[in-house]
């Protein structure tokens, strides 16, 4: 049952990225280009997503537990550290170079565009290299990935 719920959530998420055209790197880059032909569509995507999620989470967290699992699993990390800021900065630079973040990258696989395949492969390598560095070479504390 959990698999059906998460498949459904994935389908709705992919549909949302498609309807809003966040799957289009050109549109994302135009959002980030404040000094050019600025396209503010992304603000409306975040606003819609944030409003529904903030309200929905409030209602959901009134429950003792989720429908199909034992407990809500939320990130336990609280401190603002160099990894959070440095990692987010690296991500921002990569996002600005190509206009693609992880959700749209995976959703765009449907287009079979060579650049999408290459981006996803490079992204997976970046993730694996960082996990190895984080857990084996420079273990700081047990951090569970939240986002």
């Amino acid at each position, binding site marked *: 049952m959990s698999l059906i*719920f*998460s*498949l459904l*959530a*994935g*389908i*709705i*998420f*992919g549909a949302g*990225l*498609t*309807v*809003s*055209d966040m799957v*289009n790197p050109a*549109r994302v880059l*135009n959002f*980030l280009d*404040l000094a*050019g032909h600025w396209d503010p*569509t992304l603000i*409306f995507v975040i606003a*819609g*997503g944030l409003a*529904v*999620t*903030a309200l*929905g989470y409030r209602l959901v967290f009134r*429950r003792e537990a*989720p429908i199909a699992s034992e407990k*809500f*699993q939320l*990130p336990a*990390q*609280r401190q*603002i550290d160099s990894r959070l800021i*440095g*990692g987010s*900065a*690296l*991500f*921002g630079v*990569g996002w*600005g*170079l190509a*206009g*693609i*973040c992880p*959700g749209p990258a995976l959703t765009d696989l449907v*287009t079979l*565009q060579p*650049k999408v395949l290459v*981006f996803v492969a490079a*992204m997976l390598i*970046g*993730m694996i290299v960082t*996990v190895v560095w984080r857990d084996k070479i420079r273990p700081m504390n047990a951090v569970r*990935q*939240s*986002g």
Partner: protein
Amino acid sequence: MTSFAPIPGLIGGILIGLSAVILMLTIGRTAGISGIVVNAMTATGAMDRSWRLAFIVGLPLGALLVAALGWKDWSSLAFPATMPMTVIAGFLVGAGTTLGSGCTSGHGICGLARFSVRSVVATATFMACGIATVFIIRHII
């Protein structure tokens, strides 16, 4: 060139929010894509891996569904970055989201919706760095 499209943007955003709420309500998980991908690769338990793979498979299926319903015009789709730039970008996105524990969805939607201070800092950081990068590429170089 893309033209400002607030209504499709808002509808898409609402769908993304709906997805995040469904995932939390049903299995108690955050809809952060980078974390889902990283943990799909590193998870040891079968269930820990399978729900994440199901979510990942759903993403392109969602795009297919919208296209099948005739609600998607792919004609404006463009990947302006060169191939070498795409490789560097992909690596930085993978490494950065792993190190920073989240991306646009995990921090920008789910984290902000919980009023997480870490997510506010992360979102402000990647937005600022994304804007600065595009400014340098398009208006300075």
